[in-house]
């Protein structure tokens, strides 16, 4: 009897054992859950994306009912007209990829533009929606030699939600500069609009 009793753990010991087993189970479960959560982040990101609203894509671009091309106007035919667009008759694309800024339209036949005066001209700050854009144009020998940004968007007012998910496993690569020639370039829309606007204003100072 006494031997059997002595082999039995004391109530205190049993309680300690019970709690340590419970703690082990709880910790294991937690660790497993954390592990699964980390592994599942990609799937969660995809799941979040799959909750995005479904979209019906029109094959035909909707056209306003009455929009038809306006009667033809020849640029430059009406000299008094307010800011007449610059018309640039460009040659066929050659070996070099097109670059911003476009070459100054010195040879434009439609609108006579005087040669630019040498110097540095600063365009206005233009709201590019994602931030302000301001450029400085440098004219050398009557030609646009350099354009630099004085101000450019470095914050996004529209920055809405930033998720904490890892990226899903789509293909990924480091960007690499390409030297192949191209017909046309796709680039950031809103900023380039503002860029062109600020540049145009800087160039108009150079003309005056």
């Amino acid at each position, binding site marked *: 009897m006494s031997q059997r009793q002595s082999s039995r753990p004391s109530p205190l010991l049993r309680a300690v054992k019970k709690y340590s087993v419970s703690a082990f189970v709880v910790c294991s479960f937690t660790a497993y859950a954390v592990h699964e959560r980390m592994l599942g982040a990609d799937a969660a*990101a995809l799941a979040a*994306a799959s909750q995005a*609203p479904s*979209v*019906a*894509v029109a094959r035909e*671009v*909707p*056209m*306003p*009912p*009455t*929009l038809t*091309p*306006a009667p*033809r*106007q*020849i*640029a430059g035919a009406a000299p008094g007209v307010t800011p007449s*667009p610059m*018309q*640039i*008759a*460009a040659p*066929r694309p050659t070996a070099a*990829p097109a*670059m911003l800024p476009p070459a100054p339209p010195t040879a434009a036949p439609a609108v006579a533009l005087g040669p630019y005066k040498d110097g540095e001209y600063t365009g206005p700050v233009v709201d590019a*929606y*994602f931030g302000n854009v301001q450029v400085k144009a440098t004219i050398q020998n009557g030609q646009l030699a350099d354009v630099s*940004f004085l101000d*450019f968007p*470095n914050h*996004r007012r529209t*920055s*809405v939600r*930033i*998720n904490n998910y890892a*990226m*899903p496993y*789509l*293909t990924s*690569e480091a*960007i690499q*500069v*390409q030297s*192949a020639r*191209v*017909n*046309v*370039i*796709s*680039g*950031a*829309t809103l*900023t380039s*609009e*503002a860029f*062109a*606007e600020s540049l*145009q204003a800087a160039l108009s100072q150079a003309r005056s």
Partner: protein
Amino acid sequence: MKTTCILMGMPITVEVLGSDDETLVESVFAFFRQVDERFSTYKETSEISAINAGRLRPEDASPEMRAIFAMAEQTRRETDGYFNIWRDGRYDPAGIVKGWAIAAAAGILRRAGCAHFYVDAGGDIEAAGHNDEGEPWRVGIRNPFDIRQIVKVLAISGCGVATSGTYIRGQHVYDPHAPGRPIKEIVSLTVVGPNIYEADRFATAAFAMGRRGILFIERLAGFEGYMIDAGGQATLTTGFGRYVLS
């Protein structure tokens, strides 16, 4: 024949193969000018300015204006509100007008019998047929870190290509919920779609979604995307590779 005009504050280029019809190209630019007169928020005399000034109610506006508002509203619903022409207490429909105008300009050329052309307005492009070498048009994606470079060359025919983005020159965007921890936010998102109207509106909305935007494009049937983050790392949707030349 390739012609460039600065209109709507950006360079617009039209190149048409096998045609020297200057009056046709001029009618395309006249159309852009007409669009600008109506929708420019920079022009006091435009219809959109009249609406924003409270001189004209949107429901009393021209059919063109109401059509644009309807397209914007449809896009807002389809993008979970990420696309919205109502900002800072006024309407700015530029995000829908531009893609629509390029697509409509391409329509003018098609109806005139042109099969091989592209229309490029500020880096958003609709391309049809082939280039002067008989191959699909070669469309470069501009490097968001250096506007003089391209980082991808695509072969495009019968599609629209639009890029939304910003040039941030390496600055980090910070997560306001975790200050001090830099995150690599996206700087450029290029979308190829069935036409430029579709590509442009979804590129604009998806860019505003941040990193999640590429997933939104991934889910859209008939659309592919190329996203560049602030660290210079690109993410491609599953089928984007079919457009890539280099």
